[in-house]
């Protein structure tokens, strides 16, 4: 019933609509314009601006509606007859526009919205061309909002989109309105600063120049720019966005619409990450290390150098002595070519896109349970779910748009259960339950939850069900809860909330779902018959795996042991593919130390900084005989490289990427590659020629042709991709794995530290993006009692000592942390500044923290 198709008539034209949807929505979709300001497809309907008034000549019952009706709040009904051109509609429109402009400053020449302003455009189309006002115009006191959102509230038309966005979508509720009548003032509350990570969306939805982009404004006019539309590549969500350039320079990013992924929202990291493209850290030309220093070289020189060095190692030690890491930050095409280069040209299966142990653990857990990675759930499913289990996921910090989807589900009544050492914040007033296990005991908490589900009647079925049922039967809920440090009552309540019979449950495993927790998340998804999503940090980890960047899996995810699969590769590439699995990213480090591997090719990754076991990794990099770094930005691994090749960022490359729900999307080049960067797939082809083993794929369509041949379900998407992309779902069937849980860690005294990725602080790309420097700084988060205990307040510096190293971080007092637990951002910044590694990511490492320096007390407003 809900999606019943009906037809109504607008100005004599037939318009198809879903029954009950707003007449305005259907008309706009049909290309028939009705003026509007307050209406927004993804916000609640308020009917306040009155610009969309229409004449309902027949309400579908043969009778006219006496008063003009707002089209945004008029549900479409079969047989309705509507006019937007009748004299009384025209008169009302002219009236509404006159009122809207009554106090508008009309400062279009100096307004950044000019040229893309719904007020300007619709005024030209619908208003009378005279002004009859002689009064002074309203002036609001000037207030600033944030580093990103520039207010000019005198231009505000009070459409309340910003208010509704922050209340309904973001949940922070920062925007509100004060006063009445024509003194009505829209703004933020002084004690509620606009710091949300999705705040920039108000810029896009504000229909006037009241809220503009502080980083972009006055740098270009919209008519001077061109834009490319496609997925954001800063995380694995892949939100649709528009990337704008003037000449060869990126200017800004705005949100695009994809109802299957991001509705119409993007996060501020996605909005401002582009500023990393023009950053000083960009590698602009090939470099070769000579006399201990990296020195500029030409492409032929650099490729020749690599060819010589690799050629010698191959001759002496064979392909097994070369390993490649990376690819999760590349297009599918470049990832495919990376794998083909390794397998075909180097004869090595030691190629792996899972540089971080977490990615390795999560993908292996999926392989064990489902025989494949990804395709078990959808982002839209998350937004519609009636129950959501978050495992080690803090979506506002890691994948902000997923947080909005979880919130959407919660608004629709979903129960949300979070298994995370912290009480994560989803800005929900109700419906969120926390199970906060000791760090590293997430798997045990999940097993307890599974036990509680079983008590409530959920029964495993399918492959491995017996073993798992047995494991649950013999599990002791109270003991599990005690060891994980969660409350059994709360575990039982959470189990009830998740409703075992519901097919609309989604399990979302985030970066905190490591090792056993990842496997247990898969078990729970099977037990709940739920969709399952793993949210990785690398934007194209899924695509890179599908393209074969795995030591034991060929393109299309086919096992290396499958002779037919190897033959297919040989057919495409021309040479045989070895049957023996290569080394995984976990094995490479020891192999380097033991000289079994002599050369390492780093493709768009930075293990020196990003690997949690930094010291061990750096030792291995030191031991490597020959390291190539092929990347867009200088990073910590550069120090170990003998040759450096420049790569374009994903803003500078054509291709496709695959997001965490296995949606393949077309990436369009937004600007020319900077400097001498050239597409990696091309660089690999050229390198193969330098090695005198030329690859067959030397053009993008050739690479795609091969990928289509070898990756079965990519055949369609890679030949023709619809704008919203194609989600390659897999059959939802898997096997329970009743692995025994590792013994519970003895209760640790003192302060423990966990590392968690913060999207805006992770990766060399984000770190180089100047506009992201206005995001919250890297900080050590402490619970209020712990902060008190060491005598540090918000913003004070603390010295963190861990595994013999120490580093200083500002303190953030955060009541979501339990006493005894501290959190610091994983990744680039922390690692670069001294290396908080040594197993901190798992289980929480013992740290010593002491107050180091008091924060400078800044006078506010002075």
């Amino acid at each position, binding site marked *: 019933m809900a999606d019943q198709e009906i037809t109504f008539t607008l100005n004599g034209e037939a318009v198809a609509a879903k029954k009950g949807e707003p007449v305005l929505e259907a008309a706009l979709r049909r290309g028939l314009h009705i003026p509007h300001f307050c209406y927004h497809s993804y916000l609640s309907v308020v009917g306040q601006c*009155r610009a969309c008034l229409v004449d309902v000549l027949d309400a579908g019952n043969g009778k006219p509606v006496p*008063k003009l009706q*707002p089209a945004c709040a008029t549900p479409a009904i079969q047989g309705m007859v509507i006019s937007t051109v009748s004299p009384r509609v025209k008169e009302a429109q002219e009236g509404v526009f006159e*009122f809207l402009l009554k106090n508008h400053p009309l400062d279009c020449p100096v307004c950044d919205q000019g040229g893309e302003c719904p007020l300007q455009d619709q005024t030209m189309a619908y208003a009378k061309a005279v002004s009859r006002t002689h*009064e002074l115009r309203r002036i609001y006191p000037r207030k600033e909002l944030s580093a990103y959102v520039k207010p000019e509230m005198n231009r505000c038309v009070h459409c309340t989109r910003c208010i509704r966005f922050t209340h309904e979508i973001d949940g922070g509720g920062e925007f509100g309105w004060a006063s*009445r*009548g024509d003194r009505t003032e829209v703004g933020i509350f002084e004690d509620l600063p606009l710091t949300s990570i999705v705040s920039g969306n108000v810029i896009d939805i504000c229909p006037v120049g009241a809220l503009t982009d502080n980083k972009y404004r006055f740098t270009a006019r919209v008519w001077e720019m061109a834009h490319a539309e496609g997925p954001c590549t800063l995380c694995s969500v892949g939100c649709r966005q528009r990337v704008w350039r003037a000449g060869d320079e990126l200017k800004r990013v705005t949100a695009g619409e994809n109802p299957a992924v991001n509705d119409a929202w993007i996060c501020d990291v996605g909005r401002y990450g582009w500023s990393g493209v023009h950053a000083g850290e960009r590698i602009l030309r090939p470099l070769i290390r000579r006399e201990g220093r990296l020195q500029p070289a030409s492409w032929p020189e650099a490729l020749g150098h690599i060819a010589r060095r690799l050629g010698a190692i191959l001759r002496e030690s064979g392909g097994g002595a070369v390993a490649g890491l990376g690819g999760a930050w590349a297009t599918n095409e470049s990832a495919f070519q990376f794998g083909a280069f390794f397998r075909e040209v180097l004869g090595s299966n030691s190629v792996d896109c899972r540089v971080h142990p977490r990615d390795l653990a999560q993908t292996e857990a999926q392989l064990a349970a489902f025989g494949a990675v990804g395709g078990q759930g959808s982002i839209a499913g998350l937004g519609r779910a009636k129950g959501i289990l978050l495992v080690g996921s803090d979506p506002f910090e890691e994948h902000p748009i997923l947080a909005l989807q979880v919130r959407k589900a919660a608004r629709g009544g979903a129960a949300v259960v979070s298994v995370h050492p912290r009480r994560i914040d989803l800005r929900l007033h109700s419906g969120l339950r926390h199970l906060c296990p000791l760090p590293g005991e997430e798997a045990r908490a999940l097993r307890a939850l599974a036990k509680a589900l079983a008590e409530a009647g959920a029964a495993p079925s399918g492959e491995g069900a017996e073993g798992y049922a047995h494991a649950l039967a013999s599990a002791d809920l109270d003991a599990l809860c005690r060891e994980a440090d969660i409350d059994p009552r709360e575990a039982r309540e959470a189990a009830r909330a998740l409703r075992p019979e519901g097919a609309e449950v989604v399990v979302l495993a985030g970066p905190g779902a490591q090792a056993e927790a990842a496997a247990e998340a898969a078990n729970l998804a099977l037990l709940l018959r739920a969709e399952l999503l793993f949210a990785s940090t690398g934007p194209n980890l899924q695509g890179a795996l599908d393209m074969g960047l795995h030591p034991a899996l060929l393109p299309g995810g086919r096992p290396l042991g499958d002779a037919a699969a190897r033959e297919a590769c040989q057919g495409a590439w021309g040479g045989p593919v070895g049957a023996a699995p290569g080394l995984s990213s976990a094995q490479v480090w020891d192999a380097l130390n033991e000289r079994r591997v002599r050369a390492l090719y780093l493709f768009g990754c930075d293990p020196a900084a990003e690997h949690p076991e930094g010291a061990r990794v750096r030792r291995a990099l030191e031991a490597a005989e020959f390291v190539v770094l092929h990347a867009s930005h200088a990073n910590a691994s550069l120090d170990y490289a003998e040759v450096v090749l420049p790569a374009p960022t994903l803003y500078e490359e054509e291709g496709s990427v695959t997001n965490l729900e296995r949606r393949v999307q077309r990436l369009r080049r937004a600007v020319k590659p900077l400097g001498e960067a050239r597409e990696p797939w091309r660089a690999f082809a050229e390198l193969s020629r330098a090695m005198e083993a030329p690859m067959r794929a030397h053009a993008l369509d050739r690479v795609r042709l091969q990928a289509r041949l070898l990756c079965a379900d990519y055949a369609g998407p890679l030949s023709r991709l619809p704008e919203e992309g194609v989600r390659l779902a897999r059959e939802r069937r898997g096997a329970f794995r009743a692995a025994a849980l590792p013994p519970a860690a003895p209760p640790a005294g003192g302060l423990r530290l966990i590392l968690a990725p913060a999207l805006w602080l992770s990766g060399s790309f984000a770190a180089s993006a100047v506009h992201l420097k206005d995001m919250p700084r890297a900080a050590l988060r402490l619970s209020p009692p712990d902060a008190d205990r060491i005598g540090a307040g918000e913003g004070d510096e603390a010295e963190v000592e861990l595994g013999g190293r120490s580093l200083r971080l500002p303190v953030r007092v955060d009541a979501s942390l339990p006493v005894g637990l501290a959190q610091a951002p994983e990744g680039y910044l922390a690692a670069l500044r001294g290396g908080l590694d040594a197993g901190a990511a798992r289980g929480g490492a013992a740290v010593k923290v002491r107050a180091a320096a008091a924060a400078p007390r800044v006078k506010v407003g002075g």
Partner: protein
Amino acid sequence: MAIRFEKIVTGRFGNPEASTLAGYEAAGGYQAIRKILGKAEPKNVIELVKASGLRGRGGAGFPCGLKWSFVPQSLNPKYLAVNGDEGEPGTFKDRELMIRDPHQLIEGIVVACYAVGIAKAYVYIRGEFDAPWRAVERALGEAYAKGYLGENILGSGFGCDVYAHRGEGKRGHPRLKPPFPAVVGLYGKPTVINNVETLSNLPHIVNNGAEWFAGIGIDEKNTGTRMYCVSGHAARPGLYELPLGLTCEELIYEHAGGMRNGKALKAVIPGGASAPVLTAQEVREGKVRMDFDSLAKAGSMGGSGGVIVMDETACMVQAAGRLARFFEHESCGQCSVCREGTGWVSEIINRVEAGRGRADDLATLASIDPNMRGNTICVLSDACAMMFGAFLKKFHREFEAHVEQGRCPLGSPYPA
């Protein structure tokens, strides 16, 4: 038809004890609920109220029983919102009802809740009303203590709770209709909204019957009494409960003591700020009656019962400007039309009054008027347009004179 004079809701106003429970009971209070609770079928109570012809006293004059019957019986919970906001300038009756006879209101509320099947009622009392707030709070306490409220009232098996409130916790914003409050109202649930005076009539209708009530007033659609709040240049301004159907002149000259200082009547606003002004000539020659339908026929409305009487010394531009200020101040600011329109209108009229009128101002005003009607979420915008539209049309010469002379010809002091 001869009009029967009988006081209904103000019958106990002379009795200072009536505001207490004991006084109310002694004066025949809480008999109505004894009569119906658990005894009469709720739907028969609705029929009774329909038959009485009782119309809403809050402004729109909508038939009370009919409004009740729109509420879907199957949806629960349902609420009753009692409108004790009394915001319309010139209106001062509900506060007196709440101060002087709060139990009458409470009993009316119980009757309404019983008829519609409501278990919770909220009396919204405007923030400025301190005495009414305290009176209602005290009366609620007494009624609860005596078992007139709460569970199982008088052993009837029916129960309801009544709370005095100062809002829903949100900004005061009229909501889009449909859905109508009868289906989606307070807290998103089916809600009956009734005015304090409307509800105060109910115990009497139950006690004395529909026929008795319908017998007061001028015809079957205009029954009972109204509390006329006479203000302005009448010799004895004040609150007069009188049967529906008296003429305006009778109200002013026979009940409110005629005009102050024997001056001539110039204009009357018969139903609060939103009601279009009537000229003395219209009142006199049209023999305009003060019931709902007669006022509507005369191009105005009964509204909230606020009767503002103005004599020959009153400046119509100043009056319109003052009322425009009210609308400007009260506009909630949601609708572009009303937010900007009320302010604009107020600016223009008050500029004209201050002697700074422009030649095109009156034409501009006249053309703003239709744009402010019928195009907004609630009818505050319409009310503003009806107000200044009537002043402008009926006293156009006076507006013109202001513009031409660059000052107020009546010399009325302009409030800065």
